[in-house]
């Protein structure tokens, strides 16, 4: 059970009687994280790495401790934990650096229609530029990636597997460990998009044995402007940097430069210092709550919601079997964009659209969906208000002539 007053940790609720169901887009920010950001700007507010005076030394120490904290939380080492702008940037780094240099015509890249654009498009580009082939795991009728279906596309040509850990539209959890095991048998590498899993479950990259794993700060109570790429040390060692400049080299002359070791070789310029401190604080915050409890809490809300929706005429749920607290649904005959305005009037924040994952929307054969996603600050009262609004919305749009 989560402590009852978690909403108090999130200042947004002070001014808004909000039912926030858009955490799959961005989570809200709790006070300790806001404080950690503020602390940097008020107490240090100086650059790292290159300063020999005390304030800079302290900022550097805090910054690198933040990296270690984050590394520890995902079971990675310091050198394997690279800061990026966000999950999109991390996913792109793998494709631009590893993909562009190592793939060739005849090679196959396995992706899925469940991928977020930020995991599909980078590999579309790699395919286009290298001549490798983009292959889609056939989804089950429910829209799932299964081991069985993965085996249908895995073969000796497979060089890279790029799959999401949890779908941001369908909430399905990919059986990623087994897929990684199979991929490795074929000597293929696996890039995991963990943007929707790291915020909600404890993820251990060594246990998972993935080759690359990416996620964002802002979806896990951290700040905007930071993400993380985990990569296996030996792979990172062999990879080329994709940005060049200050802080990623150790000596430079007019025509040549020698690059530092990972993680620094992938991090040119002044890093996201405040954001790294904020993200480490977010990990500590979530960890204090406990990922087991977070999962149980979300699952309880999910079950309650699905059960209620099942009893309402006029709503279609596309993923009733989802393991994680993301619900893809629509009101019959009501465009999600119309629907969302109804919910908004009662301060229920839902998302309508394709959720940056058009291929799964195409798979569902609808123009767009509504999405409700739960997180730690959601309560049973939120579920009840949401369900009440679903019923009212159906009545409202019927009366309006939809």
């Amino acid at each position, binding site marked *: 059970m989560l402590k009852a007053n978690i909403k108090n940790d999130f200042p947004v609720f002070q001014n808004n009687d909000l039912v926030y169901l858009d955490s799959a887009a961005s989570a809200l920010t709790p006070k300790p994280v806001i404080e950690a950001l503020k602390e940097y700007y008020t107490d240090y507010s100086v650059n790292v790495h290159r300063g020999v005076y005390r304030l800079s030394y302290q900022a550097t120490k805090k910054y690198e401790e933040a990296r270690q904290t984050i590394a520890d939380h995902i079971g990675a080492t310091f050198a394997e934990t690279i800061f990026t702008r966000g999950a999109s940037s991390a996913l792109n780094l793998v494709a631009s650096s590893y993909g562009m240099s190592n793939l060739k015509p005849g090679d196959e890249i396995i992706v899925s229609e469940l991928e977020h654009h930020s995991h599909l498009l980078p590999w579309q580009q790699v395919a286009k530029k290298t001549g490798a082939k983009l292959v889609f795991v056939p989804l089950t009728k429910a829209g799932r990636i299964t081991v069985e279906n993965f085996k249908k596309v895995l073969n000796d040509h497979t060089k890279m597997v790029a799959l999401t850990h949890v779908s941001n539209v369908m909430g399905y959890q990919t059986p990623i460990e087994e897929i990684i095991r199979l991929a490795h048998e074929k000597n293929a590498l696996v890039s995991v998009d963990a943007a929707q899993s790291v915020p909600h479950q404890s993820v251990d990259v060594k246990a998972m044995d993935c080759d690359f794993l990416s996620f964002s700060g802002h979806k896990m109570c951290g700040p905007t402007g930071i993400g993380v790429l985990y990569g296996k040390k030996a792979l990172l060692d062999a990879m080329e940097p994709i940005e060049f400049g200050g802080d990623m080299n150790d000596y430079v002359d007019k025509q040549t430069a020698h690059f530092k070791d990972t993680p620094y070789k992938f991090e040119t310029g002044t890093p996201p210092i405040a954001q790294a401190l904020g993200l480490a604080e977010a990990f500590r915050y979530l960890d204090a709550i406990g990922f087991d409890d977070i999962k149980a809490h979300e699952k309880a809300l999910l079950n309650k919601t699905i059960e209620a929706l099942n009893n309402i005429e006029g709503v279609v749920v596309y993923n009733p079997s989802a393991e994680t607290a993301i619900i893809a649904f629509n009101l019959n005959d009501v*465009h999600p*964009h*119309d629907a969302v305005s109804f919910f908004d*009037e009662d301060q229920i924040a839902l998302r309508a*659209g*394709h959720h940056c994952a058009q291929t799964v929307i195409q798979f569902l054969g609808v123009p*767009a969906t509504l999405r409700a996603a739960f997180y730690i600050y959601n309560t049973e009262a939120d579920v009840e208000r949401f369900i009440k609004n679903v019923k009212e919305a159906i009545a409202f749009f019927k009366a309006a*002539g939809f």
Partner: protein
Amino acid sequence: MRDLKNLYRQIIMDHYKNPRHKGLTSEEGYIKEHIKNPSCGDDITIQSKIEDNTVKDIRHEGTGCSICCSSASVLATLLKDKSVAEAQTFTRNYINMITNQSYDKNFDFEDAIAYQGVKDFPARTKCATIAWLAFEQTLKKQVK
């Protein structure tokens, strides 16, 4: 109860359920513009045909919410047979009215006045203007 009631006026629902001038044509003399609002999936194509400085026809096709789809139909109904100059003025006034920019307060918006309520739903102004913006583009293309 809700402000939303004000949004879904009779006229809007009528054009949403029974769109006029819907469906594109491959006839000659039409200029086409396609606009997508990627944030929500609205996707509208407008064709217009100008002859003798007059808007002879407007066609539309696409997917979107009630506001978006109905407004394409209202647009086609209202601007057909207007002069190009009138259509331009109408379009600009309409877009400016919806997006809270300055417009002629005495302008007669005819049935398009039904969209006035969209102003109170700033997140929806794109829906109400996307067809009109596409139409404005087709005019610009012909004038060239």
